[in-house]
């Protein structure tokens, strides 16, 4: 591990020639993607375009078949998921992966714990513990303060999505992957989500997968279009919105 390689002047994320095959199926082919620190990027594409597979490769849920992944200048292609997380990467899941037996605050506390040194501690947290404090702060950021002692299993769907986000924000992240955070949310909840995302500190870059163009284009500075496991267009939100090919694709045509 070279400490100099992660000074922040490097790209937050750099994918070079990345492919992922499941047997004969090419889920991702030759992905080239560069995201600068603090940049907010949307990834759009129809179902099966490979968006979530892209996330899974970046977080290390499974290794890519080919190509390399660099995080803040460091080659993490061979690193297990937890090592990438400790370098400042976070993600949310499309299908909520929460700890349903635990309360809201405990879910966030476990999330904060994951990147702290106290992971293996046999001693309970004190009330003035820094981790407990940051967990409580995060419940407020995602408007779950009133529900902090509620077991996750009795939260509404929208609240569970908010909790997903809080868990991704735990422990000073530098780069976050949001996998369809707005899916299934009401219009009010969507507005809250946009507020949370646009309110994140400027150094925190992210990639967001989103079907809702309204949300996606409002929270991102740059858009990457994917189709059939390939990147087929990149540009500013306005350019993408006006692009005839994109429109055709989103209206169900298959001109790519």
């Amino acid at each position, binding site marked *: 591990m070279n400490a100099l390689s992660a000074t922040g002047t490097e790209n937050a994320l750099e994918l070079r020639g990345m492919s992922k095959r499941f047997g004969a199926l090419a889920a991702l082919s030759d992905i080239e993607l560069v995201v600068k620190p603090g940049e907010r990027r949307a990834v759009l594409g129809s179902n099966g375009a490979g968006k979530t597979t892209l996330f899974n490769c970046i*977080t*290390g*849920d499974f290794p890519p078949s080919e190509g390399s992944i660099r995080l803040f200048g460091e080659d993490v292609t061979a690193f*297990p*998921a*937890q090592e990438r*997380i*400790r370098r400042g990467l*976070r*993600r949310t*899941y499309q299908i909520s*992966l*929460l*700890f*349903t*037996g*635990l*309360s809201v*605050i*405990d879910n966030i*506390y*476990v*999330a904060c*714990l*994951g*990147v702290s040194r*106290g*992971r*293996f*501690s*046999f*001693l*309970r*947290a004190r*009330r003035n513990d820094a981790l407990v404090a940051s967990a409580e702060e995060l419940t407020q950021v995602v408007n779950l303060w009133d529900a*902090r*002692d*509620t*077991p996750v*299993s009795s939260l509404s769907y929208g609240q569970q999505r908010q909790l997903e986000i809080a*868990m991704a924000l*735990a*422990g000073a992240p530098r780069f976050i992957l949001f996998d369809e955070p707005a899916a299934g949310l009401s219009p009010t909840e969507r507005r809250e989500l946009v507020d949370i995302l646009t309110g994140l500190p400027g150094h925190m870059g992210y990639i967001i997968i989103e079907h809702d163009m309204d949300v996606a284009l409002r929270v991102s500075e740059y858009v990457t279009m994917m189709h059939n496991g390939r990147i087929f267009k990149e540009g500013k939100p306005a350019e993408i919105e006006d692009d005839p090919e994109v429109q055709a694709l989103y209206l169900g045509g298959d001109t790519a």
Partner: protein
Amino acid sequence: MALADTSAQARARRADDRVWIERITAPYWVIGVILLIIPAFASDFVMFQIFGWTFILGMIATSLMFLGGYGGMVSLAQMTFAGVAGYMVAIFGDSAIDTISMGWPWFIAIPLALIIAAIFATVIGWLAVRTVGIYTIMITLAIAAAFFYFTRQNYDIFNGFQGFNSVFPPRLFGVDWRQPMAFYYLTLFWAAVTYFSVLYLSRAPFGLALQGVRDNPRRMAALGFNVTAHRVAAYAFSAIPAGIGGILLTWQSGQISPGTVGIQPAIDILIIAVVGGLGHPVGAFIGAFLYVILKTFAVDFLIAVGLSGDRFQLLIGLGFLLVVLWSEDGLLGLWSKLRASRHRDPLTGEVRE
């Protein structure tokens, strides 16, 4: 396996400013006082055999409850960890087999025995955590069987079929700890230490993360946890209560032999933990008490109703079957079901607080 009391405890963690002694709830006072005064009226047999044995088996079953209930890993090797500690105390300490036993003082032999048990459990854990569900059970069962046959065939270290006899507790503070009342308090003390440590640990970072690993290993990795390391550490920790139980078990019967670490005792520990309930450490002790009562009195009961006393395993098996059929979480599950139904509104079916 939801932790029903989690949010209540979370609230207590923040809002409770009372002194620790005020926080002890009524059931703890009652049970604590009863357990402390039992020697005043119980016979030697009840203290030594019934309660002594209950506490010991309860501790070993607690180590399984910890792995299974909090970690989602069902291990059949807990009796083996207990046996390793028991054997090591016999080998490093005193026994009638003075050609093997080294006769080291207790303050070296006992910690060394526990350390070796923990190292053994770490290696076993490292093998077992690569598997899930039924395969974990198979691997740990295979290890239990292998250890049983190894101790039976190895005469240089484990003294083969005979094992070690005359393994007794040290005479500390001038007390003969094998005398029934002293042994009762000795086992009660360590059972209480085990119970409260596991309960405490369940809410400490290590325990919380272990429950996270149980519920959602993939998410835990995505939060920066090393899932494999956490599971292996849980195995290592589980060897401590199991090991203490194993040493006490060796002292109680005054001997350790391959029979102590056989397949049957390994399965008995699983039965105790599951019948009691894996959701809370108290289940292990309830299960152990029921098991000891059945094992001790089933023979008399069967003979009294005119059946052969050899069939006592049948009674235990039937009891096991009934509990598992009626409840997902052993006797603890039955208890919470009962409480829920008492609080249920007969008209709407809703559960009141």
